[in-house]
């Protein structure tokens, strides 16, 4: 198919179009015709009898000209096409203009604060509903879905053992390594055991486990419930007369509240093992010596301080995960969006709560 071309006759009154006026050439054609129009402003007809091809894009360009100048030489199909396109009501809808940057910051901040308040209210409401459903289920244990609970404990807890163990081991390795390196100049490298034991038991074990579980389990709660929501399965539950809270939220909450403390304990132990490996390699300490040292350094309170936080973190991770799952709307992309929000929010909550616990324990002197 040959290139588009347009030529004016000797008097410049009649424009003859040749070649293909199709989408591939339409930009060039529009450009040429505009140039031709400035050159021969008083044209009186456009002859398209020599056009080899015309599609809707080309017809649109011709229709724009056709408002001022008659179009001649159209074949029957071309005329039908031109009529079809010229009859279409084309108006480019206006998109909203973005606000100027300064105003956008102010408006954005305001909106964000309002949204934050509304969101906090929603979280608290959801928390209340969940606690009620939880209490309701515990009062009538025959309605508790134990199968579902044990299934979730498996996927939250047992399936996560390798990754949690590895993580705790590695973190302890890093701590111990740094501890020895920093304390050696002062001759206090044996205090590395204290460092590792206390930091793992009080903070690192539970915090990192909670963050890992928020990423792993919180997201899967949102995605699982979200898919069910998107495919109207949640509505189907309600129609069948089953409370989605009781069926979907309660078993997950119970499972995560049981599994996260257990995982935390496992992480603590793996951390102590990891610490031993490095300390043993760097300052030559035997197993009984290591255990003795831990016994002297860490109180049972230290373990308790760490472990008490686990079910609280678990509760919030579970709540946030389920809440965002139920907030999914029909579309697939909202599942992705809610999952991201859920993970970010639960990790943030875990960190904020941990800071709160630190201050609390400091105040009560544990």
């Amino acid at each position: 198919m040959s290139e588009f071309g347009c030529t004016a006759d000797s008097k410049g009154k009649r424009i003859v179009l040749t070649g293909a006026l199709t989408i591939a050439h339409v930009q060039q054609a529009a450009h040429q015709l505009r140039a031709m129009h400035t050159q021969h402003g008083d044209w009186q007809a456009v002859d398209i009898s020599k056009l080899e091809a015309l599609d809707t894009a080309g017809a649109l360009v011709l229709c724009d000209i056709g408002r001022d100048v008659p179009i001649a030489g159209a074949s029957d199909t071309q005329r039908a096409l031109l009529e079809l396109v010229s009859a279409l009501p084309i108006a480019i809808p206006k998109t909203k203009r973005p606000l100027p940057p300064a105003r956008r910051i102010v408006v954005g901040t305001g909106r964000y604060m309002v949204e934050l308040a509304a969101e906090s209210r929603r979280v608290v409401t959801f928390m209340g509903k969940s606690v009620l459903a939880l209490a309701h289920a515990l009062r009538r244990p025959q309605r508790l879905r134990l199968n579902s609970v044990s299934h979730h404990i498996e996927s939250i807890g047992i399936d996560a053992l390798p990754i949690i163990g590895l993580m705790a081991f590695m973190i302890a390795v890093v701590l111990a390594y740094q501890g020895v390196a920093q304390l050696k100049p002062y001759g206090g490298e044996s205090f590395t055991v204290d460092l590792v034991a206390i930091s793992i038991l009080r903070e690192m074990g539970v915090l990192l486990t909670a963050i890992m579980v928020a990423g792993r389990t919180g997201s899967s709660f949102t995605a699982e419930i979200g898919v069910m929501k998107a495919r109207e399965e949640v509505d189907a539950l309600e129609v069948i007369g089953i409370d989605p809270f009781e069926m979907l939220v309660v078993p997950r909450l119970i499972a995560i509240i049981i599994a996260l403390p257990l995982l935390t304990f496992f992480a603590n132990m793996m951390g102590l093992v990891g610490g031993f490996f490095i300390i043993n390699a760097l300052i030559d300490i035997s197993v009984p010596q290591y255990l003795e040292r831990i016994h002297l350094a860490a109180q049972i309170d230290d373990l308790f301080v760490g472990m008490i936080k686990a079910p609280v973190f678990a509760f919030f991770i579970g709540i946030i995960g389920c809440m965002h799952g139920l907030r999914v709307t029909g579309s697939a992309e909202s599942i992705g969006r809610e999952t991201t929000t859920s993970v970010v929010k639960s990790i943030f909550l875990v960190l904020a709560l941990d800071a709160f616990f630190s201050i609390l324990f400091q105040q009560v002197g544990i």
Partner: protein
Amino acid sequence: MTKKKTVEPMIAVRQVQNRFGTQVVHEDVTFDVMPGEIVGIVGGSGSGKSVLLKTMVGLRVQNGGEVRIGGRDIRAVPPAERAGLFGMLFQQGALFSSLSVAQNVMLPMKEHTDIKLKLCKKLAQMKLALADLPQEAGIKMPAELSGGMVKRAALARALALDPPILLLDEPTAGLDPLTASGFDALIKKLNVNLGLTVVMVTHDLDSLFTLCHRVAVLVDKKVIIDTLPNLMQHSHPWIREYFHGPRARAAQVATEGRDD
């Protein structure tokens, strides 16, 4: 539009085989689609209608045989050229959810032509109007559209590069009868006015009776293609049942009633 020996077929499917593992879906599928023709593909569930459509656009590499478009093997056509050759309407619309409707239509134009933004926007709005969508739909996101509008928007995107061939995968599935017949009329209009060649997989007997020049029936891992009146007389038990069932009769009566 009847088949003439002198005209080169638009799409030629030759001895195509498709297998999934040991399960043979197509054994020897052979048929032609002529320029300007509307061909419907029907078949029982699991007979490989969608697989056949995907093979025809080169989304799936067949296990044997070949698909020729305008005399060339489909797999030898470079992707950019392929985009200008076919428009495909997917069953669920497959609109890009992160783009507005107009941006969806503009995407193929932006990728494959040098059209400037201003003209591009205008062309996109024209395609939307062509697909019978209101102009304000352009700035909406796909998630905000109803089922019928999604199909229309997807059709507008399929038409973006003015392809000579349009492939439709169950275009009227999930639409209410009024919207569905509106969609049928739209496809008819495009076929008549733009000379589009249309291949459609459909279960909608109304569409078959009102639109299709010929119907390809997938039975026994092969294709039997013929005009509807001839298929009605066909002796194959599945075809007999399909075209003589109560729904088929109702659709036929309805069509004859409003026939032009």
